[in-house]
């Protein structure tokens, strides 16, 4: 079987051919690395971004419209007007969700953060002029804002935001420069995860979040300036889980039900103390919640229930069962409550007068639904 002698040239040619074929077949280009800037879609927020709030310019609502893809919209009912209009800030994609913030005293307009999606890794910000008639771009937040309706807080030139990493970013020059505040040290209940912020003064900050594995509500007061935020725990009158935080009020799901906590300063000494409203008996987390005026709040409950609380000493008032597909409640004209129900591309406005026993359909706002966009 010795067949190879005398065949060296043929074999050499064969080897050469095999080398070429193997090189041709085996080698492959190095793939370009996947988009390095890409990050996964933000997870669904624990507390829905759907909300409403009131400023001197009017009543604002943030609601998702359409289902595939969802684009978030801002609607406004200016001043004492009886009708709503679409007022989503232009120029940036809202499909990641919108986080809205108003001045603590309700003066001025609205600031909105666009939660970035896909390849965007910073957060565009837009603000209305005090009259609420036009949007302008504010300098961006350098990180992705987290999925919480209270992740952004604004007061004059002071801005603060909770980043997706949980860090608190703060700016005292209207967003031109941001710095990351040191995180709070663990408390007795465990590590603290901040989800909500409010600006309480030129250098004061109030942070709310969950503490430890149980997620106990925690409020921390800190300072924007100085080398350290120096987070101090705020003593709360009732335990529970934090739902919302804005200005100097918080919505907490306490053992007895949903309560509004409000801060008030003790006369003379300036020591803050917090009081709790009477509880609204509920089971589960509200479907959506928001603010009415400077001291009130609303909550949409599982099963179609709804309740509002207005004055600082008032109790919860249960509203008639809300219309189907209601996404948010908001301040209506003349002390009424408006329910914004989303149906396909339409936002249907229902109104409930101060003492009315049912909802009346008053308006339909057609939203030009986006099915993706170029750019």
């Amino acid at each position: 079987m010795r067949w190879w002698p005398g065949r060296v040239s043929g074999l050499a040619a064969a080897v050469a051919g095999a080398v070429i074929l193997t090189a041709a077949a085996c080698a492959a280009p190095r793939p370009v690395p996947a988009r390095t800037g890409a990050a996964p879609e933000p997870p669904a927020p624990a507390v829905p971004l759907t909300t409403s709030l009131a400023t001197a310019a009017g009543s604002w609502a943030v609601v998702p419209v359409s289902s595939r893809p969802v684009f978030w919209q801002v609607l406004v009912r200016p001043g004492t007007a009886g009708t709503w209009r679409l007022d989503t800030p232009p120029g940036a994609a809202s499909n990641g969700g919108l986080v809205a913030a108003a001045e603590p005293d309700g003066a001025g307009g609205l600031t909105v953060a666009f939660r970035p999606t896909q390849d965007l890794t910073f957060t565009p910000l837009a603000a209305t002029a005090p009259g609420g008639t036009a949007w302008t771009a504010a300098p961006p937040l350098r990180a992705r804002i987290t999925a919480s309706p209270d992740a952004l807080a604004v007061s004059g030139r002071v801005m603060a935001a909770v980043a997706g990493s949980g860090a608190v970013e703060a700016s005292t020059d209207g967003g031109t420069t941001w710095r990351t505040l040191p995180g709070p040290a663990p408390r007795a209940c465990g590590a603290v995860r901040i989800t909500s912020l409010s600006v309480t003064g030129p250098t004061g900050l109030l942070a709310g979040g969950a503490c430890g594995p149980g997620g106990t509500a925690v409020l921390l007061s800190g300072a924007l300036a100085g080398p350290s935020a120096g987070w101090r725990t705020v003593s709360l009158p009732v335990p529970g889980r934090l739902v919302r935080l804005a200005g100097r009020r918080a919505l907490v799901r306490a053992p007895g039900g949903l309560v509004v906590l409000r801060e008030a300063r003790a006369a003379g000494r300036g020591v803050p103390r917090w009081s709790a409203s009477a509880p609204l008996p509920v089971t589960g987390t509200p479907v959506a919640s928001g603010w009415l005026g400077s001291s009130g709040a609303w909550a949409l409950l599982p099963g179609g229930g709804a309740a509002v609380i207005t004055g600082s000493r008032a109790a919860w008032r249960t509203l008639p069962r809300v219309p189907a597909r209601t996404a948010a409640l908001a301040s209506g004209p003349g002390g009424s409550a408006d329910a914004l129900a989303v149906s396909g591309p339409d936002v249907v406005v229902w109104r409930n007068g101060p003492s009315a026993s049912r909802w009346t359909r008053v308006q339909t706002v057609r939203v030009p639904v986006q099915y993706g966009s170029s750019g």
Partner: protein
Amino acid sequence: MGSGPGASGAFLAGAFRSALLHQLAVIAVISLILLAAWTVIRWRFPALAAGGGVPRREPSARWALRTGFGVLWLLDGILQLQPAMPAGLADQVIRPAAASSPGWTQSLVNWAVTLWDYHPVTAASSAVWIQVGIGLALLCAPRGPWSRLAALAGAGWGLAVWVFGEAFGGIFAPGLSALFGAPGAALLYAVAGALLALPGRAWRRRWPGRVLLGATGAAFLVLAVVQAWPSSGFWKGTVAGKPGPLASMIGSMASTPQPRALTDLLTGFGNLARSDTVAVNLVAVLVLTAGGAALAVTAARPAPWPAAGEPVSRAARAQRYAVAALAVCCLVIWLLFQDLGFFGGLGTDPNSMVPLIVLFGAGYLGLAPAPAPAPAPADAVSSREAGAAGQRAARVPGYAVATLGSLAVVLVGAVPMAAASAQPNADPVVAEASAGQVSVFSKPAPGFTLTSQRGRPVALSALRGKTVLLTFLDPVCTTDCPVIAREMLLADRQLRARARAVALVAVVANPTYLSTAYTRAFTRQEGLGAAPNWLYLTGSLRQLRAVWDHYGVQVEDSPAGAMTSHDDLAFVISPRGVITAELNADPGPGTPVTTSSFATLMADSVRHAMRAG
């Protein structure tokens, strides 16, 4: 099998056709050179051209194997000509074929898929010429080192296709079945090539035939066991309410674009396989078992081969009939289970049954006694003695020249593929297929003065002497703009030292988010701050609108939370301030392949502008 691709596939098909024509021209030139050389040798150097000695007749087994696989390779090469191949083969055939294989197999296959995705036209045309060349070489060269070299090429390419194109024929994946092609047609091609690469004297013995018969018999028996294995699921007509593996596979074959009669036949057979699964699988198992046993017995105890004119013994007749019956059964399987293999626009070969028939058929013929040497022509001796050149011309081994030409055809395919595989950047043809070809023209670039991301004024005129790659990007865009920026950065890297003479310039394309805070944020996001030649320019809305208008870029705010819409355009401006090219920069799906391809397209356009000055 998948259907043809869309618009980008049509573009790739056109580029594929063009590449094939170019390569055909090269082959024609090579053929003419070889023909001329051969003619010169025949008439000027007859002593070199003369065949040495009296040629032996090729054993019939080797002839059957060589011509059988020569025809199959040629057919496969012709199938590779289908226009859907560049766009569809990797993602619609190769990747799905490996989908159920283990991770390491998929990694190997991913190599091939990446190569194909990055260089679809080169890879597709290379596959054509390599396979056509191997087929022609096998058909042309009946013996000698050229024949063995062709066989070795077939073995090597077959093995490469089996590993990278067929994921080892799916032998590491669940659901292995001979009925649907296991252990992979390309492995059979490789085995045939390896056997044909044996020296001629080996084929004058019986062992290659017996080995072929024994090996194919054993393979049939193993595959019969796999087919009968209870956990394989082939006995089940339905699984979780869906058709079982047999009916499901036949059903998918039936949905392949093909002649109506074949669809009807397969649909009917698929229904039978669903309703009478046990019977169908039982018949298949029995055929595989009986066929394997018959081949194994024939290999172990071959009946004496009847000489010409002698009566055929009963044993020899039985073995002959058994082999013929198995061939018929294989043809039935080929039709009913494998759907002939080559329909649908992306069929690359007739699957495994035909090569199997050639293999065991050749093995059976290998049991015949080796042919005696052909008698030497009377004039051969005298002419050799006399040295008459004119007589020798008739014995010039033209097949050697033809084989050489055929192997040159292989190289026409293999060399570009090897070159492409060494190229880390995707071919620009992928980008052109997605966004259209580059518009080449010459007109002065409209000037502007805007503000850089660092807050400094920048005038286009100040960039004279550099080649400018100009585009329009929305700093808060979530999709296309970041990808375009990355393509520009990749193009910059492709240009290497030349990048020093290039400016990467983007102008803001958003009427709202136009402050330098946003151009800086975008620059930081994309890591473009490290590129010294990166400029992201902005200005007042009035200034920006003027630039958008001059360059014909539409920028509009969209309502209800949509991104600003704007044209994805890129311009190449020569060092003299002349626009030399306009690219549709829409990055399409933004995959690594398209990103790399767009970068190559941009870099090529910049190089062209540099050459143009």
